[in-house]
């Protein structure tokens, strides 16, 4: 038997198969209280301090619906172009797990609050892909298990487990896409772009913190392959533990190459849950299930049906903020940007910052250039996000103004920005402390120019002979002598004046 390669080359995958994706994204709502009780909905906290009889599932305790959670779900549904159910219920999803206090999750089953919508997703090259939304439904989060001892941190092999129910009952929305087909080699990118777009949408709606690192946004990626030329979906796997935007893309890509290798070798795909391994970008099978899970859903008898009136739904539609794609279109028009410039502006996450810098008095072109180019590079070098950089739009606007006044050259301006990033204070403070102002005193400059001319008489001859471009050598020498603080344009003018 020949060894089977674990993965197939990505291009080869696409020669033989069409990928089909399905993405399930869980978003924790940022309501003040949990979904069915009055406990605070906050991340972290001492274990088991944000709990009560209801979210601990104590005997006799009952749930009461959080109206704000329902409102957020409806707004989210509207922003995803979904239908909003005129009448729907919660259902119980029954299964046993220690971090689930009631051993059923209060969720929605065949009556989701929102269904049948879409989200337009912009890819890196500006192409727009419409991702169908199957449904968005409300449910409650579980507690957290901490498995102590053992090598893996998973329940198997652990010496004991600790349970923290602070998260139990936190409102969640699960958004499920329709099958995403026909994306070919772009499938992994579409997956990332979709989750990115969803994240921007949640931020714009203000309904969630969408921190993937804190688990307030979680993505499960369903991937299957169908042989080219066929139309029947292959067996899918569901990859969990995908905790960053980049991981979404990597996980989908890896599953495509892994499944293709299995299929090309004549094997078949096991329908299973897999875990994404951040370290090497692979997926590994979860614990095999002996029997398929039967959740025995039935309508939650402790809660009354939700029947949002059409008036209320329309009122909520009126509260939707400008949605990300609408804003993109508006900004492009207002600022007169090309498609490529618009893409860079939004892909770097600089749009808000540029807008604030413009509001602080800077011209659009300069503000955009600083944030999209130089500051984005700085963020990348520091492995952080643009908004996390320790510099404010007002500070950037001040730097831009100082360039305009001639107080700073571009090179000096970058030094000033470095100073601000290093925590040395406002731009003016940095300029004063580092002595970075442009040397604009002609007498001081003339001395330097004369000195340079005196040391290079042959160049002076050339200039006087009409070879004006030879002045560069003198300018260079002056700049070197002034440690770059002189305004090169002015130096050049002085050199030419002296040689007349």
């Amino acid at each position, binding site marked *: 038997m020949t060894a089977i390669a674990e993965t197939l080359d990505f291009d080869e995958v696409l020669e033989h198969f069409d990928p089909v994706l399905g993405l399930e994204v869980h978003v924790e709502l940022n309501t003040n209280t949990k979904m069915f009780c009055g406990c605070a909905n906050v991340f972290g906290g001492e274990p088991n301090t944000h709990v009560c009889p209801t979210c601990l599932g104590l005997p*006799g305790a009952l749930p009461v619906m959080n109206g704000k959670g329902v409102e957020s779900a409806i707004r989210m549904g509207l922003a995803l172009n979904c239908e909003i159910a005129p009448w729907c219920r919660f259902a119980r999803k029954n299964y046993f797990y220690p971090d689930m206090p009631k051993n059923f999750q209060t969720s929605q089953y065949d009556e989701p609050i929102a269904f049948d919508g879409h989200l337009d997703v912009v890819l890196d090259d500006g192409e727009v892909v419409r991702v169908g939304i199957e449904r968005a439904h409300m449910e409650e989060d579980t507690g957290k298990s901490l498995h102590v001892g053992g090598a893996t941190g998973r329940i198997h092999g652990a010496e004991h487990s600790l349970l923290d129910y602070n998260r139990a009952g936190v409102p969640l929305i699960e958004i499920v896409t329709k099958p995403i087909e026909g994306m070919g080699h772009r499938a992994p990118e579409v997956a990332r772009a979709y989750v990115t777009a969803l994240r921007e949408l949640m931020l714009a709606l203000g309904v969630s913190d969408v921190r993937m690192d804190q688990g307030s946004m979680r993505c499960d990626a369903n991937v299957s392959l169908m042989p080219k030329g066929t139309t029947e979906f292959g067996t899918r796997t569901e990859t969990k533990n995908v905790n960053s935007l980049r991981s979404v893309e990597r996980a989908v890509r890896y599953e495509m190459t892994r499944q293709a290798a299995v299929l090309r070798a004549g094997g078949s795909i096991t329908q299973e849950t897999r875990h994404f391994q951040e370290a090497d970008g692979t997926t590994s099978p979860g614990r095999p299930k002996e029997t398929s899970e039967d959740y025995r859903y*039935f309508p939650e008898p402790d809660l009354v049906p939700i029947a949002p009136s059409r008036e209320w739904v329309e009122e909520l539609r009126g509260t939707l903020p400008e949605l990300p794609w609408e804003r993109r279109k508006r900004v492009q028009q207002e600022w007169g940007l090309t498609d490529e410039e618009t893409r860079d502006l939004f892909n770097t996450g600089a749009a808000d910052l540029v807008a604030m810098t413009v509001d602080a008095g800077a011209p659009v072109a300069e503000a955009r250039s600083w944030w999209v180019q130089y500051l984005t590079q700085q963020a990348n070098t520091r492995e952080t996000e643009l908004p996390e950089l320790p510099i404010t739009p007002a500070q950037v606007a001040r730097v831009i103004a100082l360039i305009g006044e001639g107080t700073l050259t571009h090179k000096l301006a970058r030094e000033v920005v470095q100073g601000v990033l290093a925590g040395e204070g406002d731009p003016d403070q940095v300029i004063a402390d580092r002595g970075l102002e442009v040397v604009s005193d002609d007498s001081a400059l003339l001395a330097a120019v004369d000195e340079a001319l005196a040391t290079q008489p042959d160049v002076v001859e050339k200039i006087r002979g009409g070879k004006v471009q030879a002045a560069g050598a003198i300018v260079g020498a002056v700049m070197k002598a002034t440690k770059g603080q002189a305004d090169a344009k002015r130096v050049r003018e002085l050199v030419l004046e002296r040689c007349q």
Partner: protein
Amino acid sequence: MNVIKQTAAELAARIHSGELSSVDVTQAHLDRITKVDDQLNAFRHVDAEGALAAAAKVDADIAAGNPPASPLAGVPLGLKDVLTTKGVPTTCGSKTLEGWLPPYDATVTRKLREAGVPILGKTNMDEFAMGSSTENSAYGPTRNPWDTSRIPGGSGGGSSAALAAFEAPLAIGTDTGGSIRQPGAVTGTVGVKPTYGGVSRYGLVAFSSSLDQAGPCARTVLDAALLHEVIAGHDPMDSTSINSPVPNVVEAARQGASGDLTGVKVGVVTEFSGEGYQQGVLDSFQAAVEQLRALGAEVVEISCPNFAYALPAYYLIAPSECSSNLARFDAMRYGLRVGDDGDRSAEEVMSASREAGFGPEVKRRIMIGTYALSSGYYDAYYGSAQQVRTLITRDFAAAYSQVDVLVSPTTPTTAFRIGERVDDPMAMYLADLCTIPANLAGNAAMSVPSGLAADDGLPVGLQIMAPALADDRMYRVAAAYETARDAAAGGALINQIPEL
């Protein structure tokens, strides 16, 4: 004057006038419990300290000239062990909750405390309210004070036996399929299942959420009405609690006691007679109907054809909900834990604990419910049962368009002997034949003593049913009937009970 033989209304009047102290009244009942409960096992737990402290507070209030906290302030009560009591054991008749001290009060418990009602202790019951004889209590059966070889009904046999044995003048029961009314009938006491949602379920350890309803138990209709008004009312902690005024049941009971039922239309449910009905029960019922006619009521026969399917529908819905409600008893957060030896997994400990903690009837219903909800069977079982429920609700609606109240025997037979039906679940389930329809429809229903059966000399109950939110109607009819029956019989039925 024998304090323990007084009605709650009489005791309240004497306590509020200062003639009797609540402490003395409470102590008299505690003494009675000490004296006779060995023969009955009506109380699971006696809280003498708590009851006397509450009584002392009432006495102090009255001595200070303050108005009583409620019309029942100072009158002690037995609370079914299915309602949580902060810091006082709440076992639900199950081993799984042995030793559990709830950290919170049920809303009913809270209302009783606020009303100044001393809680003598917790009354015995079928495990998790599943049963019709109180033989399913993990702590031994309760015996019927009329004949200690017989059952006191169930699941609330402890509450009804405590009333009949003068251990308490008032008690609280819960009624899922007849657990207040059937024990009332077989012990010659009054039991009321209010309209579903009339009394909060918060803190009532759920058996079947869509059917469970707490209600008052007493020896007279007026006492039941007084207690009804103490515990009823909207509760924001229970989503299924009705947000409308409590029907004025006390006034209705007082009005009814005047004895005139002219203009009241009474429907006799024709389905509740014939095979399976004890002759002595049918004779007593017939006499009761004649009594109502004599009081001026117009009596007509009403057919409710779908009532025939109530029992099978109930035995699908109630177990389905119970299979989910009881899932939380997993040994992780509270309750019995067995097999936690450091080698077993959480699942194994859960499984072993549930095996050890639940009795056979509870396991039987969990299994029936798990099966009925499982994929592929849901529509045939749970789904069909819900359709039957709709049909029964329609039968009631049609009936109430013609009559004000419906009447039937509360139970097909008088109290059976302990052990007689334990091996025959179907025979046991038939005890609730007449009471279940009102639970399925969410309507009000009650049982009032209608004398002793001629064939065995045991108490028989008359069931009076009324539409949802029309609880006052049945109280009026019940009070009129009670007054007339007692006058004709030369005293209250309870006076005929043999001395223990």
